[in-house]
């Protein structure tokens, strides 16, 4: 078993989200190319932060955020501003 690591979107497909129109994450992306280590890419459990090599820029989506808030603590440049989504929106765990 475990011949193949399941992709993160297969896992996130099992999680219910009430997606808001407004993003609850903002990133000052201009500082990202000079970031040491870019820990947000590896640390986010939902793999919401990815790197676009072509544009040499950070890509993130707030829709799949599981609201752990790790990114607000691990950004070495304090470029990530994370807050809770508006009331009633965001992740909705059924089996938490």
């Amino acid at each position, binding site marked *: *078993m*475990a011949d193949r*690591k*399941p992709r*993160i979107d*297969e*896992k*996130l497909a*099992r*999680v219910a989200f*009430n997606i808001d129109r407004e993003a609850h994450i903002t990133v000052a992306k201009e500082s990202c190319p000079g970031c040491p*280590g*870019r*820990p947000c890419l*590896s*640390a986010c*459990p*939902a*793999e919401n932060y990815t790197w676009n090599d072509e544009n040499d820029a950070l890509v993130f989506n707030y829709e799949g955020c*599981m*609201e*752990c*808030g*790790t990114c*607000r*603590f*691990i950004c*070495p440049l304090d470029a990530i501003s994370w807050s*809770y*989504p*508006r*009331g*009633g929106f*965001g*992740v*909705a*765990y*059924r*089996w*938490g």
Partner: protein
Amino acid sequence: MDRVECVVVGAGPTGSACAIGLARKGIETVLVERGSQAGEKNVASFVLFANVLKTIIPGFADEAPLERIGSDTGFLCLRKDDMMEFRAKAGVYYENPMIYTAYRSRFDRWFASKAEEEGVEVVRGMLVTDVLTEGGRVVGIKVGEDELLADVVVAADGIHSIVARQSGLYEDDTSRYMLGVKEVLDLPPDVIEDRFGLRPGEAAVKDGWGYPMSDVGGLFTIYTNNDSVSICLFAPVDALKAKGVSLRDRLEDFKAHPYVSSLIKESRLREYEAHILADGGRIKTDRLYSGGVLLCGEAGGFNSTMWIGVPSGMLSGLKAADAVAAAKRLGRYDADALSCYVDYLYETGLPRMLYNARTFSDFMVKSARRHMETFTDNLFDFMTESILEEVNFFEPEPYPSLEKAYGMFSDYVPRWLEPPLRLLVRGVSKLGSWYKKRKIRRTV
């Protein structure tokens, strides 16, 4: 503008316990929850101790949505292909349960509904975005554009507490923060009971350390619900930052470990979850309250991986309710009137417990995480080779276990003491070996 006596922010176990305490004292209370249901944002990481719950709702066992009775507890230590377990199955806890497993999403929803039955107004789907202040004192909350005035605001809004931040009580010290990721895996109840060796309705609850987390000092838990198995992995946030560790990859490594995979094989993923927690709480007691505001639960730092956050959160919530009632008798809600909160806390075992938890957590941060790999290796060598040496007929000198046992703790010996101590251990080991051989020669 509306006005109430008390607003409790966050309808987790802490907030609901506090609201129930307030309602029973006849204090008009509004409980504000950001999820569209209570518990929607919460993730259980291990067991639920019922010690405090029992004092709030004595008949909880008949009505609360609990899963199994946690009377089969174990400590696990893993290496890549190895497993070591210390397991206890207590008959008394199966007969008189004290520990349960539960889905927090269901438990918290039920507990908030109990607060509602006590007369608390529960407002769901509302995110408190700020506090209202007047003369350096908190006088209410803001929900977007709406404002609600209150004599006192109780913050039970978790680790990211907006109330605590906005009232200037919270400082992030990430050194004790742990990120946890969890998978809930479907398995039929009979398969679970068979595989884990459980009595009907009994839960296996195991926590442990080692592979695949020993390099970052992470921990893990495995526990069973009625028809699912929950596996959680925790890592210090600082290690994730410094080492670029991906907890989602480590979770896959964990699931592929021979022992873990034997427990969860042929299961199907039901839900994937993540949450952050602070290990070891806060004992700076002067920062648990201020004019018009009290912090309890995770917002006040009442959590630890050792002692579990739910009961300590509930108890802090109850004490906050007592403090509000005492302040009401005085007729004022300034910092001085609310400072009795700390006295009430000291009447319980919470400060001692949090002190212990914090001491342990600091030991983990400063020392144990660094040495976990060496410790684990030596522990395994000690356990496995102590068996081997009993049957090693080819070796006339089969007494290395003292040196292995010493190896487990050698990291903690001051550097200058290390060479003489190692020499001493080796000497004692050799001497013991010589003495035993002499004894054997005389007897056999």
